């Protein structure tokens, strides 16, 4: 049983991690595309239109890879997590079906129209199709986050005698107090990723002295959006999210902050330290006193319960992984603000395009927003363990009882091989598109 649970979780972690590489870019990129297309409508300067269409090509490749890697996720609910699907299907099935019916179709239909239909539709309608693609991709995030919010903080349900969850208030799914902060935080983080991608494409063009006009446009757009979104990820959305965790999942909050022992008055915030699970303490820590209490409750001396206040079974099952995921996310987020603030400073001074070390830094930073987004999700998911539905359904009770661990391992290896192939294909397609660059067109 332990083995089955381990391999089911490993397979889900692998496939969802690979899948989330793609939607996190599409959601943020759609906003930048709408911005550039809108700017073209207002200014009639052709380069904005060409830039929007170029970014839509990258969007399309990402979107398609997201679809390919999303389909096995849907199957996994039935194959590896049959018990979870059986018990909670009438709740989470609602939001997942809405995601497919409303968001996916909205996104894919108007994506095709955006790519093919500019000439026929005219510029205003072309802008509208871009906006609808944006709406579809953000609605997709909303429905998926609504599903996850219910798993983190279940509301509007009742449990029948046979153990099945049913909805007794549909509206509660969307007014769940967990949902809005999680959605805003997630969307801002996806804008950070896309801003870094766009800025890094710009840095690449400027450094190679190729498509320089577009390179400068991408750098400028990426840096401005990157700084604003990096700040918004931290405050208010990240702050709001953390307060939500402290309120609804206090054991997870203690674990992610590394609070092993409750302090009498005012909790310190740990900047660096390694969880020592044997002695139940943080080794080599660097901490600032009372800050965590202030950030969480706006009271320097407010007590925050440490892990010693909870029973063993209430604590997350992998505390070091949770602690490190959270700290990597926060650390990277801080670096993003610093780099983008520096880039904006030089952009205002009109010499960003000539500072090569900074351009190289921006270009090579591109994997890190992906890592920050993924570790953010690991924090959310590891914090909920050992539950699938927080406090109500344990992860070990949600797996398919008849699927052997060998079977799961076999398909996991298959996924690794096929995803490697898909990953290579993705890199080739994106590389080709970037290498080709925006195609100048005039109307």
């Amino acid at each position, binding site marked *: 049983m332990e083995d089955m649970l381990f391999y089911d979780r490993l397979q889900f972690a692998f496939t969802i991690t690979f899948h989330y590489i793609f939607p996190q870019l599409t959601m943020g990129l759609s906003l930048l595309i709408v911005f550039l297309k809108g700017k073209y409508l207002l200014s009639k300067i052709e380069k904005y239109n060409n830039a929007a269409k170029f970014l839509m090509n990258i969007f*399309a490749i990402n979107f398609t890879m997201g679809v390919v890697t999303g*389909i096995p996720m849907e199957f996994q609910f039935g194959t590896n997590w049959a018990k979870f699907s059986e018990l909670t299907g009438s709740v989470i099935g609602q939001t997942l079906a809405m995601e497919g019916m409303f968001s996916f179709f909205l996104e894919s239909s108007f994506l095709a129209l955006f790519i093919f239909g500019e000439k026929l539709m005219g510029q205003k309608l072309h802008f509208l199709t871009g906006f609808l693609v944006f709406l579809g991709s953000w609605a997709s995030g909303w429905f998926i986050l609504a599903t996850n919010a219910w798993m983190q903080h279940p509301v509007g349900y009742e449990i029948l005698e046979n153990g099945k969850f049913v909805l007794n208030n549909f509206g509660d799914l969307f007014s769940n107090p967990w949902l809005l902060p999680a959605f805003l935080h997630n969307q801002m983080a996806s804008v950070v990723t896309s801003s870094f991608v766009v800025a890094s494409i710009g840095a690449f063009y400027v450094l190679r002295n190729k498509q320089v006009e577009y390179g400068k446009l991408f750098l400028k757009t990426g840096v401005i959006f990157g700084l604003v979104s990096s700040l918004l990820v931290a405050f208010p959305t990240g702050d709001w999210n953390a307060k939500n965790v402290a309120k609804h999942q206090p054991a997870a909050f203690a674990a992610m902050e590394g609070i092993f022992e409750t302090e009498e008055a005012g909790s310190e915030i740990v900047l660096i330290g390694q969880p020592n699970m044997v002695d139940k303490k943080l080794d080599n820590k660097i901490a600032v006193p009372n800050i965590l209490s202030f950030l969480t409750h706006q009271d320097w001396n407010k007590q925050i319960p440490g892990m010693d206040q909870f029973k063993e079974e209430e604590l997350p099952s992998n505390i070091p992984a949770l602690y490190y995921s959270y700290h990597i996310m926060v650390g990277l987020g801080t670096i993003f603000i610093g780099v983008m603030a520096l880039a904006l400073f030089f952009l205002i001074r009109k010499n960003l395009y000539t500072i090569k070390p900074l351009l190289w830094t921006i270009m090579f930073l591109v994997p890190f927003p992906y890592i920050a987004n993924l570790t953010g999700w690991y924090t959310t998911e590891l914090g909920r363990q050992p539950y699938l539905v927080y406090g109500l359904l344990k992860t070990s009770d949600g797996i398919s009882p008849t699927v052997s661990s060998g079977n799961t391992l076999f398909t996991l290896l298959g996924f690794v091989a*096929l995803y490697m*192939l898909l990953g290579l294909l993705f890199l080739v397609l994106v590389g080709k598109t970037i290498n080709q660059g925006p195609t100048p067109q005039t109307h």
Partner: protein
Amino acid sequence: MTGTFISLISIIIGITAANTFGYFKKTYSFGLTGNTLIGVFGSVLLIKSFGRLGFDPWSIMQNESFNVSLFAINCLVSTIGGVLGLIAAKTLYNKLNQ
């Protein structure tokens, strides 16, 4: 269990079919990127729409035994999906850009 894996194989067959068709029939080709994207959507659309007739990944792996004939039909439909997707996309593209 293997059903999950089959769903992914179907899509890859759709991608391959669209690219192969585009390679031989240049008038329908959108290049590697376009053909790949259309191959995905073509195969997904056909398998999702018609797979319930009895050749979707669930049916192929019914009772945990692998049904080769159904898998072959699945692959064939994916191939057709990729090819038809390319033809449909080119027709739509031509109509929209006349």
